[in-house]
């Protein structure tokens, strides 16, 4: 039934890429032994005071600018008060009615609606809470405060998304922009990006919003989509059986694919926000903000467009290559080192991207890949052989491409004499096929090429083989005709 319209808004928290915490100089290293990156401030000891991290503010500003937000010259830190074991001070330092930035947007293409523009209501900075571990000690909850105080940017979207698929596309685009801007690693696996969703339904054409529920505990973009699908279905089923949607918080279970209301039946929190008296207002000069704007790296949309025009790349190629900032950077370095852009694009979209997805890095330097591409272009290596060399280099990055090819015996033979030798052997060995070829089955040419490749153990340069074959076969006809 498509009479129901889905309305989704997303709240995303990203960890800012700083060396130290938001309000103290403890390190932010992920994975350290529990409770080892602590000082009086993030431990919430009596008498400790917060001092904000300049780099966190700068990165948050960059993020806001990259998302097209207005960065406010004056914003205010506020205390968000509640009790929880992962919250050392019994309040979180965040921002409330005067956030760092408001009013941006993220756009992406949707198969259903074309170009979709999602408004960003606000972006503000705050500190993270610690981590709780529930199943390690029987009857107890364990608290690790290493994460307490790590800088976060919270990004709230307008309820402009209309499907779980769009929600996923929004997240992919948002992540891409923030990674490009160098603001955050945006890794859900490492916890540097977290998503909470608000979702409601209404009759198509209705302008008022339905009751929204909050969905949490989604640990991947795919699971965000699954969770929202499940919750949409649940809401539709409720309403279609005459019941009402209650304003609840639900947790997604990745194993079952279902959403379930949380067990805690507490009323909605009264956070009692007030401006933090330990922190004077954050004042940013218009000049400084403008400097950050000009210092923004080229963002995904702009880079895509430029790759298309500058390198005459197809739209698809440009989109794939710019899906990761590092991939695009690598591609341009390969072209700068002398490779043909389209060939480079093919390599980057295939072998390079696979390696990057597996290992998160680029073991083969752009110069070496350009060299490899050059070897193929000059006929020294077949493409197939080059891919083998690439795989070798990925394991042993210090090796030289040509030397590796030689060591593996992959250097193509283009020498006419050698080629002719193999061609003669193949034609002698397959008289029936030769006859069929002369009778008109010209597509047997590729069979002969294949045989030559086999006989030469892949070393023959296929481009050189074909003319020699054709010449030989021609000669045979002539001699037969005599």
């Amino acid at each position, binding site marked *: 039934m498509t009479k129901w319209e889905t309305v989704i808004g997303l709240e995303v928290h990203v960890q800012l890429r700083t060396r130290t915490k938001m309000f103290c100089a403890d390190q932010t290293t992920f994975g350290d032994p529990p409770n080892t990156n602590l000082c009086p401030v993030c431990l919430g000891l*009596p008498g400790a005071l917060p001092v904000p991290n300049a780099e966190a503010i700068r990165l948050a500003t960059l993020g806001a600018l990259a998302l097209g937000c207005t960065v406010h010259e004056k914003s205010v830190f506020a205390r968000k*008060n509640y*009790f929880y074991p992962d919250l050392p001070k019994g*309040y979180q330092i965040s921002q409330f009615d005067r956030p760092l930035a408001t009013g941006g947007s993220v756009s992406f293409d949707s198969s259903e609606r074309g170009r979709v523009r999602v408004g960003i209501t606000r972006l503000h900075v705050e500190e993270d809470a610690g981590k709780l571990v529930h199943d390690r000690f029987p009857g107890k909850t364990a608290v690790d405060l290493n994460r307490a105080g790590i800088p976060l940017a919270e990004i709230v979207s307008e309820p402009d998304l209309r499907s779980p698929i769009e929600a996923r596309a929004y997240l992919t685009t948002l992540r891409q922009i923030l990674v490009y801007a160098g603001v955050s690693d945006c890794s859900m696996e490492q916890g540097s990006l977290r998503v909470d969703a608000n979702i409601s339904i209404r009759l198509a054409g209705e302008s008022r919003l339905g009751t929204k529920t909050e969905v949490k505990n989604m640990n991947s973009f795919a699971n965000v989509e699954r969770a929202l699908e499940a919750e949409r279905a649940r809401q539709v089923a409720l309403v279609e059986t005459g019941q009402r949607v209650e304003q609840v918080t639900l947790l997604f279970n990745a194993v079952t694919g279902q959403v379930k209301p949380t067990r805690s039946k507490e009323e909605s929190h009264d956070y009692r926000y007030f401006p933090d008296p330990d922190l004077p207002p954050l004042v940013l000069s218009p000049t400084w903000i403008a400097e950050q704007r000009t210092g923004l790296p080229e963002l995904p949309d702009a880079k895509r467009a430029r790759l298309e025009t500058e390198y005459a790349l197809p739209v698809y190629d440009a989109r794939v290559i710019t899906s990761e900032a590092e991939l695009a950077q690598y591609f341009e370095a390969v072209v700068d080192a002398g490779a043909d852009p389209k060939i480079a694009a093919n390599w980057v979209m295939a072998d390079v991207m696979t390696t990057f997805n597996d290992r998160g890095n680029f073991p083969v330097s752009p110069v070496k890949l350009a060299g490899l591409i050059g070897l193929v272009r000059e006929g020294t290596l077949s493409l197939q052989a080059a891919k083998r060399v690439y795989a070798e280099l990925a394991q042993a990055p210090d090796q030289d491409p040509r030397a590796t090819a030689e060591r593996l015996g992959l250097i193509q033979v283009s020498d006419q004499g050698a080629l002719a030798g193999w061609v003669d052997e193949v034609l002698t060995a397959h008289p029936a096929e030769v006859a069929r070829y002369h009778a008109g089955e010209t597509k047997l040419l590729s069979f002969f090429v294949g045989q030559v490749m086999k006989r030469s153990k892949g070393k023959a340069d296929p481009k050189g083989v074909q003319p020699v074959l054709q010449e030989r076969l021609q000669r045979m006809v002539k001699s037969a005709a005599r």
Partner: protein
Amino acid sequence: MSTVVSGAAAVATETGKRLAAAEGLNATLSWSQDLLDAEATRVDSMAEPGPLAGMALALKDNIVTVEQPSTCASRILEGYVSPYNATVVGRLRAAGAMIAVKANMDEFAMGSSTEHSAFGRVKHPLAPDRVPGGSSGGSAALVAAGVVPAALGSETGGSVRQPASFCGVVGVKPSYGRVSRYGLVAFGSSLDCISVFGRTVKDAAQVLSVMSGSDPLDATTVNRPPMRVPEPLQNLRGLTVGVPREYFPPDLHAGVAAALRATIARVRELGGEIRELSLPNSSYAVPTYYIIAPAEAAANLARYDGVRYGPRRIGPEGDIRSLYRATRGQGFGQEVQRRILIGTYVLSAGYYDAYYKKAQQVRSLIAQDFRRAFESGIDLLLTPTTPTPAFKAGEKTDDPVAMYLADIFVCSVNLAGLPAVSIPAGRSEGLPIGAQLIAPAFEEERLLAAAAALERVIPAAAEVR
């Protein structure tokens, strides 16, 4: 090598004797002869003796040190030893001060009599059935009793000037942002100031000078050079001293009124001009204070939850909420709980605008009153410090508001963030009375130079008529 007898060691021994003799005051929560002696050894071996060399200082128990417990006179921090030092401790020790005495106080600095300590009240050194004032009553008593020449307290709503007045010693509150609060256990963050008791203005000024200056660990400190110890003025010629009529109500205690009349006369004798003025929003200072301070305190005290430090209690349900409620319910005293509840209430949904936001706006009116006064050609303000001399223990503990009114002349200064000093101005029936001078923000040098001049001509312990 110097042939001077180790000065600090002798001070340490003598201080220990006086502390032992003064145990009956219950003015200390912890002190250690071993630590005093260790401090003396450290100071005596300093290559260059600093301006406070060999001075034993008591610290209010809400200023943290690593050697001794800091309990803030509360059961919820019983036995808690801080793993770091307050910034002021490092600065004072580098100047040669010996820090080994923690003073009793009202729990979490909430009170005006030191009767709200979880470890017993402090007795007034001159009259044991009376209070020394609060919340820094222990520090005041130690200086008044001659145990230490100077002591640190803290002010949120007058908690150093008021006990200084009750005990007959000097009490100085610096401008907000002048001294680092890193290591001062927070009560009302926008009001708290580490402040100083001294026998004389000069002693207090020395200590304040050493402590002052911005701190990268406290974002509310102001980027100004440290305060210098001023030379006392020879006279007050050329100074205009304002006398705000709201601070001299017709029903002011007779002894206080007499002491202030005499002080005004001294100002004139020294060549100062006295000018009457009005600070129209004065009457709103106490209610404004009792909205803002508890609100900030409610948030500041949320960290005392039994999770990471301090003693822990768990209620019968055995879950996390009962950990919080039992630890806090049994660990905090009555006055602290009242203030947390008020503070939570005034910040809660539906009440924020009517109370907290309104109070912050009235606060700016109060600050504006002072600013206008100082802009109109007035250099300093002169007022009584307290409406009465020290009251009897138990006299005001039944009615919280009655206790709050003890701060009526001092808390406006905290709201405005200004520097002020209370100097002894005589006695009434044997009980000390204080006169208060208030200066514009960051004019501590002007304030203390004038206070030192007055100090010379006021017979501090004389009975007033």
